[in-house]
């Protein structure tokens, strides 16, 4: 249960909004669940709906709408490469292609160990740092700009190690 493990986080999230407008906390609470479970599970949706006095469908409908929310697990770390126009003009599509080839997966796929997914995404407001990607994982989202296939593979090694030791 989120409510027990994260009671102080939940309290400080709710405190940001007027008492009769708790529904505003739905996205932050879904993030909390996703960091904990790797996706927003049905149990988590029910719990969030209860906390906010809204319908479960009102929580569930947000998942398809917002690209950073997932209702099923993918790779533990999702490497989201920006392949939008400005980055593509700086070689981002080739970069994505080569990285997937090295990992032996298709764009949108996950490595067999379930650790790494690679996806192509829209502009991340870092167009002067192409090729670039963000890593979405258990500890939120981090940006990595001015990447090469080698630097990306080194980062992936590090993520795998981090997982072994933690």
């Amino acid at each position: 249960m989120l409510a027990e493990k994260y009671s102080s986080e939940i309290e400080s999230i709710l405190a940001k909004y007027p008492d009769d407008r708790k529904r505003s906390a739905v996205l932050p609470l879904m993030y909390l669940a996703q960091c904990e479970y790797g996706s927003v599970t049905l149990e988590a949706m029910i719990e969030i709906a209860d906390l906010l006095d809204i319908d479960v469908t009102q929580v569930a409908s947000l998942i398809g709408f917002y690209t950073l929310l997932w209702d099923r697990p993918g790779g533990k770390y999702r490497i989201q490469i920006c392949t939008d126009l400005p980055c593509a003009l700086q070689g981002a599509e080739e970069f994505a292609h080569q990285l997937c080839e090295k990992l032996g997966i298709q764009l949108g796929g996950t490595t067999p160990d379930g650790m790494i997914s690679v996806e192509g995404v829209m502009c991340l407001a870092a167009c002067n740092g192409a090729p670039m990607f963000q890593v979405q994982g258990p500890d939120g989202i981090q940006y990595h700009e001015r990447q090469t296939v080698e630097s990306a593979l080194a980062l992936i090694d590090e993520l795998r190690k981090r997982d072994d030791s933690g």
Partner: protein
Amino acid sequence: MADHILLRHRDIPDLDQLEVYLEHGGFEAFKQAVTGMTPQEVIDVVKASGLRGRGGAGFPAGVKWGFLAPGVFPRYVVANADESEPGTFKDREILERNPYQFLEGVAICSYAAQANTAYVYCRGEFWDLAHELEHKIDALHEAGLLGEGIFSTDYSLKIHIHLGAGAYICGEETALLDSMEGKLGQPRLRPPFPAAQGLFAKPTVVNNVETLTNLPPILNRGADWYRSIGTEKSAGPKVFCLSGCVARPGNYELPLGTPFRQLIFEHGGGIPGGRSIKAILPAGASAPLLPATDEVLDTPMDYESVPKIGSQLGSASIIVIDETVNIAWLVHKTTRFFEHESCGKCTPCREGTYWMHHLLQRIERGEADLEDIDLLEAVARGMQGKCLCALGEFAIMPVISGIQHFRADFEARVRNGR
């Protein structure tokens, strides 16, 4: 510009530290406002400065604040940090490197609007940045610059960070407000405008990050000084985001009215590899494409001049296209973006972006006929003027202008395939 006004962190190291920001005159403007000016006086100075919104529409900031429903409280200020337009990365630099000037701007705007609560709506991808900003806000509370009874007056203010979760449409101000209320981020029918009924149905000011970052220097140095920068109708400095086929992509703070040529060739170092420039997208994916003629390159980048040559300045995200780029491919990219980001609330945009994308895929794969180019244009024209919000209108601009100026590129794709 030797001394930056908005990207001041480039001149002053560690400006993201509160002590450093305070040493360089930080929060003096806010103090002056709260202790020596009425909210209306602040609005008047901002009106006189000519500051226009930097989020895309260029609407005069002080005028917008003047629309707040009189006598209705509480009121809210929401800073728009959703920054998701392809080619736009200025707000992120400000938030990361010069966060206190932005936060002081939020505070000044809140005082002028008589709001005691402000929110910063950050796109969900700005996760790290949002957590960093929360620490900065904590530091302001500890320094007594936020909270109850600021500067021993009865004014109080809290600023909260709200993270989105990945949706370009949430940058549209009414979609942003619905998203903040925990709903799907879809645009609202207007009126009522946010100034009458915004967040939680209360009077609300929504301004872009860069707009707000202009406020401390305007109060410190005055409206006349501000008006001396830029052009008569487009006052002040602007952060231009330069990306695409250019040697030195990046943010450049320059006066409004600087010509495209100067940005692209002097500051951006021109096109690498001796190639020539073919076209410009002046406002990310959301405005008509311009062929890079001498007339276009010599046009001043301001809110009046760019429309005169058939496009928009928007958020001033200049994407440079060189001669190696096929425009059908480019339009396929922008259309894919809008198809993905269409919120689905109205039919012309939801269906139109789908069909335009479908046709462009056929053209790209070499499976199309020449008539498909006309069909594509017809779908785009069919959407024109029928969409509920500006996203649908943005989506057709690269399509129509692309076919208009570079039809041969589409035909080449059809004839040769890939």
